[in-house]
Structures are given as structure tokens and as C-alpha cells.
């Protein structure tokens, strides 16, 4: 058998991998090898326990030398795992690495079938197709594209902050974009951190300040990414900088303008204190905000609402001229090579479970509201109080609110058990109240966490196992009058119980951000069924995404605590830096190309390309494809009415012979 690309006779070597029992348990591998051995052009056909092992690869190399093979086919796992391995082995033996074809008989075969005979038959068909197609493979070259050394970090919570600092300390220029007026994220709202009970602000604020002062970090708060173009190594990102009506460089955070505001009383819900306190239209988000600059809320400010304000803030600012009510929204374009997405989470809305009474009974609060109450910088100066100003004598925590629940969210939010136990200890410390925790299972797997649970038990916090049915205010006994009553099936005691308390804390779970689908599309990422951003591989590539050069860190990937968020942020930073320091991207050669003499210049292909890789050469009247931008999706190839667009590794003869191979077997 001959073709144009092998300098003579095609000599195929075929290898079918057992993958231990993974494949051999469902596919008769020796039978597949025997079947393929009888096909024309096949010189060697073998089955082997682990083709990806060193001896497995050595087998290929030796056969290439001894038998003069010029094509290789391996039937094993997904090409995502080992295509690179085998191409490398083929190349090491002196062949072009693209004279190789891989057949997936594990993910597409043994793992998804239960009938051994049928699975073996399918493996034979797929292998025959590959042997058929590989005859037509042409020699191809990978190309190298340089990487832009700057990095974009999206999200200024603890994960984004850590990723930005890690890369900036490594000498990379980092753009950190945060949607809110200050960085700090959820962690900035916490009083103490579990299980060590160390002060959250004390460990976070030094990092926030470091971001502000770092020479390698450009910090853009109150800003959002609105457009991402390009590809790994060469992204062009458009950032919208919302007007804060204050010049960040000139403002020193003296707050004179806030005192001078025409609104004498603060009367608008304060976002940082989750609505438990009020702020003015001109405000600083919180005492340690970075940047330490005020912001003016145009939805609340009299000047923007009516145009009839004396602008006492401008007057108070005086010669500093930091307030600029004419500031406009700006779009800024930056070039970066890599992007770290750390956009975080939102908390479950407790009103979605009406039987827990949130929004109905003022003394039913969420865990983040209690967190603000116990914080000395919070709305009550660190006093845990009921809505009548009294100190609660009994407090109940309801766990798994919006977690592990088929009616709302099925996942475990991972942090609420520990977070609640931390708050329980703080509440006891602050008020001496009796604390009861209603739980399904206590999940305290982190370092030092089980010990913390143990301490909570010893400190006299009561734990009742059972999902709370209802929080209500109807009383059966005189002791219940005027109290909130938790109705619960105590699954350890085997009793339905009614437990009256003064305050109820709902441990609300984590959810993907409300706009996570928009963000996903923006950065061309995938989401799991729950809406968390999907990592490339749950174990082997936990911070990579399916888009090269886009990494994820922190809770946008799934619920996690502070240590895990920071670990992931460090990993994402390292992955990005590894790419930058290598300096180039190796591009697969499976790109589309135009056969100019056949191109009619109809321009059908130009708007179809999702990567804007196709342009139209007006002088020649022909379409032109930028190989550096082409991702090899094949859309244009299929669409071209004159058949003038072709694609490397997916030539017509390759595809047709593959189809024939499958059909011939059937």
C-alpha cells in the first residue's frame, strides 16, 4: 500500500493497551490486536499491559527501528491524557510526531459499556478506522508563539489578592481588577478565622496594603472586565472603569466630605455591614478599605438625582480638588498573556426557605450578619444583641441552609460547619448564652478543625443532629411564649423536639455568583452543572480551565475556606508564571488553511469564525486565515461552499478513510 507522504510503502504499527483492568476488563485486547494484524499495511500489532509506561513507549521506538514502521496507532485512553506521550515517543524514534493516531477505547469504550463482546467489537471498529486514516497523515510542524509577560487577575478577594501578590513578587506586571470600590472580598467582613481564632483583619490588611503599594501591581477597583479577545499568550482585555467621582490619586481618605454631605444622617443600607448599618451617598466602604478613597453613589447622591445640591462635599475637599462630579465611565484596553479568574461566590438567600422565618422574624439572622455583629468594627461595636437591644440568653445555629438540600443546592458548602462553630464560640464568649447547633453531619476535615469541634463540645455547646423543619413563634408551653421555636427531628434521640431560643442563626451556604454565566462566557470557560467554574481536570489540573492561559482560583471554582483559596491562588499564579517564563506557546498544527485558487471570495467563512482568525484580503479577493488565532474548530471548513478551506489532520481523505474503516468493520 502506498501514498504520497511516506516515501514508499506504508508500514503501520498497532498497539492496544490493557490499562490494567481498565480496558482489558471489558475489551478482549489480544483479539483486537489479532484482528488489526490481518489488515493491509499493518506490520506489527501488539497488546500490552501499560502502553504509557516507559517499556510501553520503548516498544514503539524499537518496532519503528526494527520493522521500519512509518505510521503508529495506539488504542488506549483519551488523547487528552496521553496523545502527547505517544507523539513524543514516535518523534524520539525519528518519525514526524503527526504520523501517529490515537484511539480512545477506554472513556469511549470499556468504561461506558457493560457487554464485553460488543465493547470488543467497537474497539476493533475504532482501531480499524484509525489504521485506515493514519495512512494519509502528512508530516506537520508545531509552531511557537511568544507570550505577553503581563497578567490579569479578576477579583480582589483573598484569592485574587494572593495570586496578584505572588506573581508581582515574582517580577510579573499584574493588573488586578475588582468590581467593588475596595479589595478585600468576603474575608474583610470576618471577625476571626477558624480554627485558630486569629484576627481576620490583622492577617488580611497587610496583604491589601501590599497590593496598593506594589510597584508591579496596577489596581483597578470599581472596575469590570467587559471584553476578552485573543488567545493564550496574547489576550486583549477591555476593562470598564466605573466613575467613583473621586480622584483616587488626590483623595487622602480624610472623610471631610462625608461629614459635610448634605445628608446629615446616614440613611442608605451599608453594603459592607450587609445592611445592618447605614451609610451616606459619599462613603468609604470600611475603615481598612484599599484604596483608602471615598466613593460617591450616584443612585443616592442628591446631585445626580436632582442636580440641585449645594455640593458641600466639593467645598469641604477644598484645594485638594479630589472630588470630580464630572468623572465619566472609561474603557481601557490592556494586553496580557494570562488571566487568573478569582471572582468568588455569593451567599444563599435565606428567604428561599420561608419556613426558617428569615425576613419575617427580626431575630432570625444569617451567619454573615452575626459575623458583623461580633466584629468590633461592626454596626453594634461587637455586641451581639437582639432587635430589642437585649443580649440573647440562648442562640441556635441552623446548619446546611441552602446546602446538601435537593430543594435548593445539593452541594456541601464546606465552610459552614466550622464557620458556625467559630461563631458559636464567639457568641458564648461575648454573651454567655446557651448555644445549640442543629446539624446533619459535622464536617471538620481541615487541619486543626476536628480539634476545634472537640473543643466546642467540651466548651458546652449543644449539638442536635437533624435538619430543622421550621422556625416559628407559636408556643405550646409557657416557656415558649415570646421566643422563637426550632422544630426539629432529633435523629439521635429519635424524637421530634421543640426548642425555644432568643436568636437563630442560619448558616447560609455558598452559591456561584449571580452573573457567573456571563463571566464564564466572557473568559470562554465551562461551568459544572451547579454553576461553579469547571477546572480542566478535577485532580490533575485543578486550577487550569479548558481555555489555555485562563486559570481559576478560590470559591468561583467551588466552596472552600481561606487556606484552600490561598493555596489555589498560589497554584494558579505558579501555572501562569510557568507559561510566562517559558516565553512561548506551542501551537497545534491542526489549523484550517485556504486553497486560494478554489476560493470564490464569498466571505461566508469570515463571520463564522469564533476566534476572528479569518480576514478578507480585498486586493486578492480571497479569504485569509491567521494560523496563530485558529483553534482548529473546523466550522469554516464545513461551511465553505467551494470546499476551498481545508484543515491539517482533518483532510478529506483522512476523514473519509476513517469513516470507511468503521463501516468496513460493521
Amino acid at each position, binding site marked *: 500500500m502506498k501514498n504520497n507522504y511516506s516515501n514508499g510503502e506504508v508500514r503501520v504499527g498497532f498497539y492496544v493497551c490493557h490499562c490494567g483492568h481498565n480496558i482489558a476488563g471489558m475489551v478482549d485486547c489480544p483479539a483486537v490486536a489479532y484482528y488489526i494484524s490481518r489488515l493491509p499495511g499493518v506490520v506489527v500489532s501488539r497488546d500490552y499491559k501499560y502502553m504509557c509506561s516507559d517499556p510501553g513507549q520503548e516498544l514503539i521506538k524499537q518496532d519503528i527501528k526494527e520493522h521500519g514502521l512509518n505510521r503508529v496507532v495506539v488504542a488506549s485512553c483519551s488523547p487528552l491524557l496521553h496523545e502527547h506521550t505517544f507523539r513524543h515517543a514516535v518523534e524520539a524514534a525519528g518519525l514526524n510526531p503527526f504520523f501517529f493516531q490515537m484511539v480512545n477505547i477506554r472513556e469511549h469504550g470499556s468504561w461506558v459499556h457493560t457487554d464485553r463482546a460488543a465493547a470488543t467489537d467497537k474497539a476493533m471498529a475504532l482501531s480499524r478506522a484509525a489504521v485506515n486514516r493514519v495512512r494519509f497523515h502528512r508530516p506537520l510542524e508545531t509552531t511557537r508563539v511568544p507570550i505577553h509577560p503581563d497578567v490579569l487577575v479578576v477579583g480582589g478577594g483573598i484569592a485574587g489578592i494572593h495570586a496578584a501578590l505572588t506573581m508581582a513578587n515574582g517580577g510579573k506586571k499584574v493588573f488586578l481588577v475588582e468590581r467593588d470600590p475596595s479589595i478585600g472580598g468576603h474575608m474583610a467582613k470576618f471577625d476571626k478565622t477558624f480554627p485558630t481564632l486569629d484576627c481576620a483583619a490583622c492577617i488580611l490588611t497587610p496583604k491589601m496594603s501590599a497590593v496598593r503599594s506594589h510597584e508591579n501591581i496596577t489596581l483597578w477597583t470599581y472596575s469590570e472586565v467587559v471584553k476578552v479577545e485573543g488567545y493564550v499568550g496574547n489576550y486583549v482585555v477591555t476593562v470598564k472603569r466605573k466613575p467613583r467621582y473621586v480622584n483616587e490619586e488626590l483623595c487622602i481618605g480624610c472623610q471631610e466630605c462625608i461629614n459635610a454631605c448634605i445628608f446629615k444622617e446616614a440613611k442608605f443600607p451599608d453594603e459592607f455591614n450587609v445592611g445592618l448599618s447605614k451609610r451616606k451617598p459619599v462613603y468609604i466602604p470600611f475603615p481598612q478599605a484599599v484604596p483608602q478613597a471615598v466613593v460617591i453613589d450616584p443612585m443616592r447622591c442628591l446631585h445626580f438625582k436632582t442636580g440641585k445640591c449645594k455640593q458641600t462635599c466639593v467645598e469641604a475637599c477644598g484645594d485638594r480638588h479630589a472630588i470630580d462630579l464630572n468623572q465619566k465611565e472609561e474603557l481601557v484596553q490592556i494586553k496580557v498573556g494570562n488571566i487568573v479568574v478569582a471572582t468568588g461566590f455569593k451567599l444563599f438567600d435565606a428567604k428561599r426557605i*420561608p*419556613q426558617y*422565618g428569615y425576613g*419575617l422574624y427580626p431575630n432570625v439572622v444569617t451567619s454573615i450578619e452575626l459575623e458583623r455583629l461580633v466584629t468590633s468594627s461592626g454596626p453594634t461595636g461587637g455586641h451581639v444583641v437582639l432587635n430589642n437591644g437585649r443580649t440573647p440568653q440562648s442562640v441556635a445555629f441552623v446548619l446546611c441552609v441552602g446546602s446538601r438540600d435537593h430543594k435548593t443546592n445539593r452541594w456541601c458548602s464546606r465552610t459552614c460547619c466550622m464557620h458556625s462553630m467559630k461563631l458559636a464560640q464567639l457568641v458564648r464568649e461575648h454573651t454567655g448564652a446557651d448555644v445549640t447547633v442543629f446539624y446533619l453531619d459535622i464536617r471538620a476535615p481541615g487541619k486543626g478543625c476536628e480539634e476545634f469541634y472537640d473543643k466546642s463540645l467540651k466548651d458546652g455547646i449543644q449539638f442536635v443532629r437533624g435538619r430543622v423543619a421550621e422556625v*416559628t*413563634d*407559636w*408556643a*405550646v408551653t409557657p416557656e415558649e411564649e415570646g421566643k422563637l421555636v426550632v422544630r426539629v427531628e432529633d435523629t439521635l434521640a429519635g424524637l421530634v423536639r421543640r426548642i425555644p431560643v432568643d436568636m437563630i442563626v442560619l448558616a447560609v451556604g455558598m452559591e456561584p455568583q449571580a452573573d457567573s454565566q456571563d463571566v464564564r462566557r466572557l473568559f470562554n470557560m465551562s461551568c459544572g452543572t451547579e454553576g461553579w467554574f469547571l477546572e480542566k481536570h478535577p485532580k490533575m489540573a485543578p486550577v487550569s480551565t479548558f481555555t489555555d492561559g485562563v486559570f481559576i482560583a478560590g470559591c468561583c471554582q467551588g466552596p472552600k475556606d481561606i487556606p484552600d483559596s490561598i493555596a489555589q491562588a498560589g497554584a494558579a499564579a505558579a501555572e501562569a508564571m510557568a507559561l510566562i517564563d517559558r516565553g512561548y506557546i506551542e501551537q497545534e498544527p491542526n489549523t484550517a488553511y485556504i486553497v486560494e485558487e478554489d476560493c470564490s471570495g464569498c466571505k461566508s467563512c469570515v463571520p463564522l469564525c469564533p476566534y476572528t482568525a479569518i480576514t478578507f484580503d480585498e486586493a486578492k479577493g480571497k479569504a485569509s486565515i491567521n494560523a496563530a488565532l485558529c483553534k482548529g474548530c473546523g466550522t469554516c471548513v464545513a461551511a465553505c461552499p467551494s470546499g476551498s478551506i481545508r484543515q491539517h489532520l482533518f483532510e478529506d481523505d483522512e476523514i473519509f478513510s476513517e469513516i470507511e474503516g468503521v463501516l468496513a468493520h460493521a
Partner: protein
Amino acid sequence: MTYNYFPGCSLKGLGRAYEESLLPVMRHLGVEMAELDDWNCCGATAYMSVDEHMACVLAARNLALAEKAGPQDLVTPCSACYLVLNKTKHYIKDSPEINATVQRGLGAIGLSFSGKTAVRHPLDVLVHDVGLDVIKEKVVRPLKGLKVAPYYGCQVVRPYATFDDAWNPTTMDRLLKTLGAEVVHYPLKTKCCGASLTGTVPEAGLRLTYILLKEAVRRGADVIATICPLCQFNLDAYHDQVEKRWGPARIPTVYFTQLMGLAFGLPVEQLGLNRNFVPMKPLPEVPAPA
């Protein structure tokens, strides 16, 4: 607007005040209620727990009669009938065995049921089909100052929460507000009234009744409004026994349709209000329109 009407046994017996108020209210709103000819017992909850197949056949005869009577929805005011007829529809749809038994049974008397007829509660029909706007127009005697505890009972929202939330239904709350009444916060609105336990295990059943009454009193309600004949009976008929055991908890319980009739200015004596054991105080006299 025409509906087929399945009253069920209660509305002809203990719960006749419900029918006595429902039909005039519907007529007043221009809604025609065509009572099914030759309807039979729905089977209630008891038969379902004895023999599901035969219970479904019994209930399905009423569905078949409704289907034969026309494409209109079937309205049934009793919560037990409402639940049993809906449950039968679900069972016929989900279980080929039950469907076979039902069709065989119906076939023997020359009937069949395709599963199309919708079974509706009058509360649903009044608020969602007639509409609160239309109802509001008919209010001539707003129930101003009357504090009402809205009590739905269990069967109309569980397990099939077809027209409202299973935990916190609000359809009747909105209706009562439209009538001008003040709705008190009553978180027991879907708690158990004791149902048949008041007869069989009074210690358990009456205690549940007591909690409902006592909490309505504690929250300052003048009256409890209900949509179910069994709830009405339990909350109305056992005051002596309840109060002997646990102390005072006296409050009248009426059907929501009776309150509608009052607000519409229908003659009080025609709304069945005289049938209550614990009578509702007459509304304060309003000056006759000049």
C-alpha cells in the same frame, strides 16, 4: 364562566354552611356551578389506605362524570375531595396497573376517563380565574377592622402544591385583604387540625386543635377563616372539651366564602353563619347608603 361542581358529602351534611355561602358568592360573581349528576363518595383518605386500586376506581367515577359533562374544570370545595381526586389523577397517570383497574371498572358502567379534566379548588378559581380586581369591585361592605387568621389546613397544599406554596400559601391572605380584612401573622396556617384523630385519639387530635385556636387568640384574631369542612368542624365543635383540658381558647371559625358573602353585602341569614357552635359576632352596623 362555568365550572362543573363536585360538592362531596360534607357540603351536604356537616359542612353545608360552606355550600350555603359558596354558591351565592359564585352566583354573585357571575360564575356558574353545574353540580355533577349522580356523583358519589370520593372515598376520602380512609379508603385510599385500605385499597388504593379500588379507591381510585371510586374517585375516578366522579372524574369520568365530569369529563362526560364537558371540558370545564371540576371545582370541589372540600380539601379531602380535592386531594383524593387530584391524587387519583396522578395515580392513573403514573401507574399503568391502577389505570388498567380504573378503566376496567369505569368500562363496566359505560364510562371512561382520559385524564384531562382539571380538579380545582374554589379558592384557586376565585383568585386566579375570577381575579382580585373583579372581587374588589363587588365589595360593598369592607371587612374593615376585622382581624382574620387565614387557615388553609394541610390537604390543599400538600403533597400537590398546585396553585400556591406548600409551606407558606398566601392566596387566601390576598383575598382577605381584598375584602378589607386585616390578616394576622399566623404561621400555623398549614398545620394539622387534628383531622379524624379528634374522634379516634382525642388526646392527640384535640391538642392540635387547641394550639391552632389558642395561637389565633394570642395573635389578636377575631375569627379564623378556613377552606376545609373538616378543619372548620374540628376548630368549631370541640371548644368545650378543649377548654376543659387546657383553658380558654374561644374564637369562631368560618369559611372564607362566608366572609366574602358578608363583604359582598349578601343577606347574612343566607350565608349559613347560624350553624356555627361558636358564633361569629355580627359586623358593626354600617350606615345604610343614602
